[in-house]
Structure formats: structure tokens, C-alpha cells
């Protein structure tokens, strides 16, 4: 990773292939989310809470793999999901010190990339404008996301998840450090959240955990493919 501030002077001629940008997340098993996208993503990924290793504070995240460094949605070429979290869509761009930065080492920077940063008339490209919109959305929702998570913790709606999963080849995985919504606590007193909309998001997180099974299925498919590759029976 080599973050540099995006400038018209240095980067006007840059071309990007957004599909390859997600390669940066090929070995990422969790993507942080903002509040507004939780309900949209819950039908596609398990949505959990995890703790930031530096600050200890909870953040919502989409689970992409069943062990660290495993992304079961990355096929090697594309991110195979109907909805993509904003933190993947923004790649290879970042926010640093309030300015837009780009990972100068990203494989998405390629002369044959379909997307330009700057149009021939000198204006920002539609692609860049969409990236700007995503980045400002991510920054703009940070405070609301933090308040949402704080409310869940303060109302004791957060519980540690213990996930013991077994795969078709007999291997097992035990995930730790993941937290979810206490379904019983929420059911006991839905009025604990300020309004109906505030209840829907944690409820969506509860249902989203069904997708752990989809992750196991993806992993089994991957294990079977690997077994075939190595010529062993699956």
C-alpha cells in the first residue's frame, strides 16, 4: 500500500479498472460498514460487530470469510456479490487527512482501464464523481454509525458470537472476536430503540447471520475445487 494524495497535476492521465481494485480485498475477511448500508447488505452477507484492534471500539462489518485473510467472495478476478460494501466500492481510493488519496501500488491503475479520472475537457469524470460521492457518504455517516453502535452496547443488545463451523472435508473453524445482536433481548423490548427504523437495522443483523451457512457453502465449493486441483477426492 502506497497512499498518495490525489491531485490533478499528478494524476490527470490515470486510468482505473474498478473490477481489479477489489483485489486489494482478496485477503480481507471483514469489511467495515456504515449505518446506511447495513440493511441493504444484510440480505447478502452476515453482518457482525467487531472490535477495532487499536481502539477497542465496536464497528459493524460484513463477514466475507470464515477465518482471517479469507475472502470467499473474491473469485480471483471479481467480487462475486449482488451488493458491494462502500468500503470495497471506493477502492483504490481512500480518505487521508480530509483529502482523497489513491493507492499508487493498486493493480487497478492500468493504462487500459475503462475509467478516467479527468475527462478530455478537464472536468471530473463521472467515475471520479461517483467515488467522491462514496467517500463523502462514508465520512458523513461515521458519526451516525458510531452513535448506533454505542446505542446497541448501552442497551445491552450486543452479545459475543461463538461460531463453530464444520466443512465437508471434515475441517473445522472456530471464529472468535465476533459479536452480534442479542435476539432475545431485542424481542423482549423492541421499544428499547428510539423508533421502528432503529429496530429494523439490528433485526436485519439478526437475520443476516443465516448467511454464515452461505459462507460455509462457498468454502465447501472452494475446498472441493482445490481437492480436484490437487487430484484428491473431495
Amino acid at each position: 500500500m502506497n497512499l498518495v494524495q490525489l491531485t490533478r497535476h499528478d494524476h490527470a492521465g490515470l486510468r482505473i479498472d474498478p473490477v481489479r481494485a477489489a483485489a486489494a480485498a482478496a485477503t480481507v475477511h471483514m469489511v467495515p460498514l456504515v449505518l446506511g448500508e447495513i440493511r441493504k447488505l444484510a440480505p447478502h452477507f452476515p453482518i457482525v460487530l467487531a472490535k477495532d484492534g487499536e481502539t477497542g471500539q465496536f464497528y459493524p462489518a460484513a463477514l466475507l470469510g470464515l477465518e482471517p485473510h479469507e475472502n470467499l467472495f473474491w473469485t480471483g478476478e471479481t467480487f462475486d456479490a449482488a451488493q458491494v460494501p462502500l468500503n470495497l466500492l471506493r477502492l483504490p481510493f481512500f480518505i487521508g487527512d480530509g483529502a482523497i488519496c489513491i493507492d499508487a501500488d493498486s493493480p487497478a491503475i492500468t493504462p487500459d482501464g475503462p475509467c478516467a479520472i479527468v475527462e478530455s475537457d478537464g472536468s471530473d469524470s463521472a467515475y471520479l464523481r461517483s467515488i467522491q460521492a462514496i467517500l463523502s457518504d462514508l465520512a458523513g455517516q461515521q458519526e451516525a454509525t458510531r452513535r448506533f453502535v454505542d446505542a446497541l452496547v448501552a442497551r445491552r443488545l450486543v452479545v459475543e458470537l461463538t461460531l463453530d463451523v464444520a466443512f465437508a472435508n471434515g475441517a473445522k473453524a472456530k471464529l472468535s472476536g465476533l459479536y452480534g445482536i442479542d435476539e432475545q433481548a431485542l424481542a423482549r423490548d423492541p421499544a428499547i430503540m428510539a423508533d421502528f427504523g432503529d429496530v429494523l437495522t439490528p433485526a436485519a443483523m439478526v437475520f443476516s447471520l443465516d448467511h454464515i451457512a452461505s459462507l460455509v457453502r462457498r468454502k465447501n465449493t472452494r475446498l472441493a475445487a482445490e481437492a480436484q486441483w490437487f487430484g484428491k477426492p473431495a
Partner: protein
Amino acid sequence: MPREINSVCIVGGGSAGWLTAGLIAARHGGPGGLKITLVESVRLGIIGVGEGTWPTMRHTLHKIGISETDFIRACSASFKQGAKFAGWQTGAADDFYYHPLVLPEGFPDLDLAPYWQAAGEGPNTPSFSDAVCFQEFLCENNLAPKLITSPEYAGIANYAYHLDAVRLGELLHAHCVDKLGVEHIDDDIIAVERSENGDIRAVVGQRNGAIEADLFVDCSGFSSLLLGQTLGVPFCDRSDILFIDRALAVQVPYPDADCPIVSHTVSTAQRHGWIWDIGLQHRRGVGYVYSSRHVGTDRVEEELARYVGAGFDRLESREIKIHSGHREIFWKNNCVAVGLAAGFLEPLEASALVLVELSADYIATAMPATRAGMDIVARRFNTMTRYRWDRVIEFLKLHYVLSERQDSAFWRDNRDPASIPDDLRDQLELWRHAPPGEHDFTSAHEMFPAASYQYVLYGMGFRMDDAALARRVRQPDAARDGFERTARMKQKLGATMPTNRALLGKLAEYRFQPI
């Protein structure tokens, strides 16, 4: 119609008073509960010497309802992972051992002590505490027992705290009054009124007049105003076993803002006693405890100055008298004493606050519903609490009995058989042939686990006889695995744990989560 217990009055507002108020109020306060009042003379002030806790304090604060982050911030607290005893066995420069808070690997199912001894000792073999437990490694490297991602009151390694006792009193005061509905009265008590049956009917404040209650908790400190002075319960002097009767304490600033915060209590033996060294966030607390029968204050001040080093002249030292001992009983009529009013011993192994916690917790849990029931609870409390004092006294004495120091009468007198309690002598006889185990400690109210005795015994050079040893090394594979697990834990934690100071710095900005 039995007389109900509806009100509790705690007399005294130090750590003992407020911890007791907090534990009782958390269980019995609020609407429809007991009326809980704490009377103290703010003018009198508090002793505030207790700066080291046991891991029990985590549970206590959690019960009272204080968040760990708030506690650590308010009390300048730091993490304590046990004690390092330097110079206790021989006084040589490399003489030290640890009493960590984590049990030996596999204990009690697996007992590594005989295997460790059987492996023999040489210049490159690890000490007992280092061989069987990873915590000494954390301590020696100033590493914290937990991460910023660890939940409140939970850790990777077992831990207690170093804290500023005055600030703890202030924090508990605010919490008890604001959150738990404890009524606080600042007054000077000028008289105590009795009932016909000998009970305390009321304490009389200079400004508030009579303050009545069904149960009085005496947390008045050394003066033992209610239990000792009013009810006349005699003091049981134990200085025939534990000679320490004075402390000379100073507060030492850190040389710079980045210097390590040591995550264990350092107890360094001196010619006439020992020096405690406790690292808080903003300063160290250091004190020389000694026996005034064996040495004068001048000599002690000299040795303390040498220990503290440059800048000692500018520090204000404070002398504290210690009467080693406790009341003959602790609960009489409708009055129970907690804290210094019940008794006090030298601060070795930080037994003061834990005895407060255990006593207050029992009072809260077993709170009698009626005056008739109180006599039954009092009898049980007295038996249990006396047992606890006896065990603490024996465990403290053990540190002296095992010493080989010859450099003063203080150390030699400590090994005089006449000063050693019979129960301790019995244990030592058995431990010559077998390591301390659960079977040696059968009460539900034990203070120190068998593992603690192992750490002190084998840290101070006590060994089992060879014949006994040969019969106790029957699972060499399991033992090897145990030693290897300890070594692996050191490697793993060495790579992941932050320093004590780094974690405390982070806590100034971020909070531990409740889960």
C-alpha cells in the same frame, strides 16, 4: 412481631466505608430496600494507605456498578499482575522470585512443582515461577495483562490493581450517593447511644443529632469507635508473629512521562523490614515497613533514601503506625467492623482491601432480615473472619520463616520457633514430603490458594525431600507439555501484549467495552 432490619449506618468514609456502602447498596438499596447512610467526619480525613488490591477488586467494582474505564481514569489506577520479592531469601543481588496471579500451568490437575524440582537447578535453569507460569515474563517486560479489545474487568492474564486510595474513596462516594441512593452525612460523632440490650441505638453527630439505624458498620479506622471503644471488644495483638509496626511512606514522581509503569508490586527486603514499590499512573507509592523494636527511624530513612535515589530530600515522608492484629470478634450485637476498625497487618500481599471486600460482601449477601437472625449471622461472620485473619497471618509469616537472611536481628528473630503459628509449622512439615495442594486448604473461606504457597515456598528455596519427589513424577509427558505450553504462551503474548503504560495511555482516550 420480630424486629426487622430496615436501615444500615456506616460510620467512616475511607475505602472501607465506601466499599461497604457500595456493596450493601448495590444489593439492598433503592425503593423498598434498606435505608443506607454513611456518616463521616470529612475534617478527620482518611488513612488511605491501601494502594494494592487483589483480583477480587474487579468483581467488587463490577458488582457496585462502576465501569472499569471510569475507575482506572478516576483512581490513577494501573494493572497489577502479582508481586516480585527481591532479596527475601538471601539478600543477594540476583535474589528474587515472583508471586504471580496466574496459577501454575495446569494446576491443580497437573502439579508441575515436583517435575520442576526434579529437573535440578543451575545457572541457566528457570526459577519456579518462571518455569510454570507465563506471567513473570509479562511483568519483567512491563507488559499489560489485557488488550484494549478485552472487555471490562476481563483479561488475557489474571490481574488486580494499584490505585490511589483517596481517589477510590472519592469515586465510590460520588457513585454511592448519585447512583445507589446512599445518604451521606458529614458530621463529627460526639456520642454513641445504646439500647437496653446493649445494641447501638444511634450515633450522635454534633450537627445532626442522633442518627439511628438497625445495623451499624464500624469503618472508623484505627480508632474502632463502635466495636472497640463503645462495645469494648478487645484487640488481639499478633505482633508476636508479625513484627512490623511502622511504615515510612513517600510518593515518588516519575522521572519522565514515558518511563515504564511496572505492572506488579515490587517488595524489596531490607535489613530491618522491606520496601513496597507500587506504580500508579502519575506517581509511585514507596514505603519502608519495619519493626521499631529492631531499628530506629533514622536508619530506616537512610535506607529508604538510598532506595529512592536522587530527589528523596524533596519528598515529604509520612510515618504510619501499624498495630499488627485484629479485634477478638468482628460482629457484636448490631455492630460489625470492617477495615482498620477490624484490624490491620503489614501491607505484604495486600490483604487490607481484600478483607474489606470479603467482609462487606458477606454482610451484603447474608444481610439478616431480623434482629434475631443477626445474632446467627454474626456468629458465622466471626468464625469465618477469624479464620481468614489467621490464614493471612500465617501466609505473611511464611515469607519470613523461609528467609535465610542473617544480616539483622529482625530476620533472625522472625525464624524463632516461638513466633511461628502451630498450623503453619504443621503445613511446613507436610510440605517437606509433598507440594501444597487443594487438600491442604479445605475451608470455603480460604484466602490464598495452594498455588500461592507453592510460589512462595519454591521461590524462597524450600524443597521437597528426594524420596517424596521420586514418587511424584509419574507423568513426565504431561509435565513436559505443561512447561512447553508456558514457553509458547510467553512467545505469543510477547508479540501481542501492549506495555502497561501504552494501554493506560489508550484508556485516557478510549473505553473498554462492557463485553
